[in-house]
């Protein structure tokens, strides 16, 4: 197939990807959009196959079967609650592929008399660097979310300075590459160094900020792919990669806004590190924690007029979404007004709670976003916090020493009473004390969220 014809046919996947993103604006069409995107991808693969021509076609088939098989198996098996780390993993392998392409392209061009033009060598250096950062960073994000390594930030003195020096050094190597020092070993240094930077860059970021990191790394992979398009003079890579780069950047900024923190603070603030000062403040007004048993809470709920559920990551971990739905239905049948207050960054991904509650078929009108939910709390009899922590932490409003000071939260403490379902008094994933637990209005119901909710359902039934 001629290059011109292939380029023309590449318009099909490009258009289908744009349509796929457009269809995502509405839940009713979103799935169709994803299918359109997948169909476009198939066209892109077939066109590329024909264009690239026959050599080692059997290797292509084997490689695609291995990769596709692994991807499909992983994607099918993963539980809904583990989606964030799966997305991180698939993002990482994409970045890895972009870095490998850079390595192979330089190797292909270099043998004398070959000299890549400056733009191609710049593209090779950049996509090698960014792809490697994305690959290694995503694997660390995966390991943190999968709890293979601790979710707490890992910090050491001079961390930010060290990271910046490393990044600057890598940029210098990349500039050398594009300026004409074209040696394969130099690109290896950039790629391996990029991987090291990816690891060091994600390690200090607390688990609670992983959604932002994944979104940013998603943008990185998109960018690396777009730049890869310059190496191969391939438009479909440029456009599709950059669409993802732009959307990932925008999404990252939106999430930063939802947490009222700048991207710089998110990435370099080693968030979730309990500063000595904040810990002292929290300990100072420690007070006592009231714990209750399920029967007491069941009575509170059954005789309330209005109950608001506030889901968090604990709901996901315990897989309690169906049970919460069951409890909500039961309460509604008793005449209680039920709704769900969804914080934009509850869980491990933006909209994570929406996905889980959608899985449990919770009616959309009951899902309230933060701006809509907050004024309601003063009219609420019982706010039930199911495995959420930082997004209901009043320190974000009151305690300037708290690392989350300034983050908009759900003001559950305005409700008449608060019930917190929690496994133990351990601070949450981010490791920050929460004075809500010591509030006299609050009762704690300790235990696995799913078991607690199941008990509540039984006890409400028995009333």
């Amino acid at each position, binding site marked *: 197939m001629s290059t011109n014809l292939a380029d023309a046919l590449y318009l099909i996947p490009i258009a289908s990807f744009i349509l796929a993103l457009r269809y995502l604006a509405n839940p009713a069409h979103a799935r169709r959009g994803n299918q359109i995107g997948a169909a476009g991808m198939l066209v892109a693969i077939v066109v590329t196959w024909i264009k690239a021509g026959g050599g080692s076609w059997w290797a292509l088939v084997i490689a695609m079967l291995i990769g596709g098989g692994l991807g499909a198996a992983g994607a099918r098996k993963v539980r809904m609650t583990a989606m964030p780390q799966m997305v991180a993993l698939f993002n990482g392998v994409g970045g890895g592929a972009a870095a490998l392409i850079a390595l192979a392209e330089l190797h*292909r061009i270099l043998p004398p008399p070959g000299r890549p033009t400056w733009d191609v060598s710049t593209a090779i250096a950049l996509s090698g660097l960014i792809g490697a950062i994305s690959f290694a960073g995503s694997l660390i994000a995966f390991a943190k979310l999968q709890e293979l390594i601790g979710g707490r930030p890992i910090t050491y003195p001079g961390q930010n300075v060290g990271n910046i020096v490393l990044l600057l050094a890598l940029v210098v190597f990349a500039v050398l590459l594009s300026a004409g020092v074209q040696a394969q070993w130099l690109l290896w240094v950039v790629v391996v160094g990029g991987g090291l930077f990816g690891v060091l860059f994600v390690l200090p970021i607390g688990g609670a900020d992983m959604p932002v990191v994944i979104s940013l790394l998603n943008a990185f992979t998109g960018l690396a792919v777009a730049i890869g398009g310059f190496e191969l003079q391939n438009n479909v890579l440029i456009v599709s990669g950059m669409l993802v780069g732009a959307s990932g950047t925008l999404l990252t900024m939106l999430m930063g806004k939802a947490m009222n923190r700048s991207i710089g603070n998110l990435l370099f603030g080693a968030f979730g590190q309990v500063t000595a000062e904040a810990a002292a403040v929290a300990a100072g007004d420690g007070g006592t924690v009231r714990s209750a048993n399920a029967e007491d809470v069941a009575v509170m709920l059954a005789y309330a007029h209005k109950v608001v559920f506030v889901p968090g990551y604990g709901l996901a971990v315990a897989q309690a979404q169906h049970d919460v739905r069951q409890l909500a239905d039961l309460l509604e049948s008793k005449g209680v007004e039920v709704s769900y207050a969804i914080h934009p960054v509850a869980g491990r991904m933006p909209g994570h709670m929406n996905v889980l509650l959608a899985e449990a078929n919770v009616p959309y009108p009951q899902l309230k976003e933060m701006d809509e939910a907050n004024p309601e709390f003063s009219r609420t009899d019982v706010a039930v916090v199911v495995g959420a922590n930082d997004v209901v932490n009043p320190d974000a409003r009151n305690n300037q020493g708290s690392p989350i000071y300034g983050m908009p939260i759900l003001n559950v403490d305005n409700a008449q009473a608060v019930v917190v379902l929690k496994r133990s008094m351990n601070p949450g994933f981010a490791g920050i004390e929460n004075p809500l637990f010591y509030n006299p209005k609050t009762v704690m119901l300790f235990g696995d969220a799913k078991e607690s909710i199941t008990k509540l359902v039984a006890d409400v039934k028995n009333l």
Partner: protein
Amino acid sequence: MSHNMLLVFEVTILVLAIFLGFEVISKVPTLLHTPLMSGTNAIHGIVVAGAMIVLASGHKGPFIWIIGFLAVVLGSANVVGGFVVTDRMLEMFKKREPPKPSDE
């Protein structure tokens, strides 16, 4: 097309794609941000096309062949996994009564 003209052309579509990306994404409600992230993740799986081109030139040496093979494996995992995960997420949104319009 001369090399420089090609480059200018490529940079042009790159810049247009940036604006298009911002424009399209800003219409997606928070409700769908997780599938959005996963869906865009699948789209950058297009890297598999680049990997295929590399592997197709694998006759130029074992290094390129091996790297290309690995890149195709990774790229295909990205594509298939990305679309399947997104589909599983969106499946849950589909069988619902008409959603309330997003209120941002």
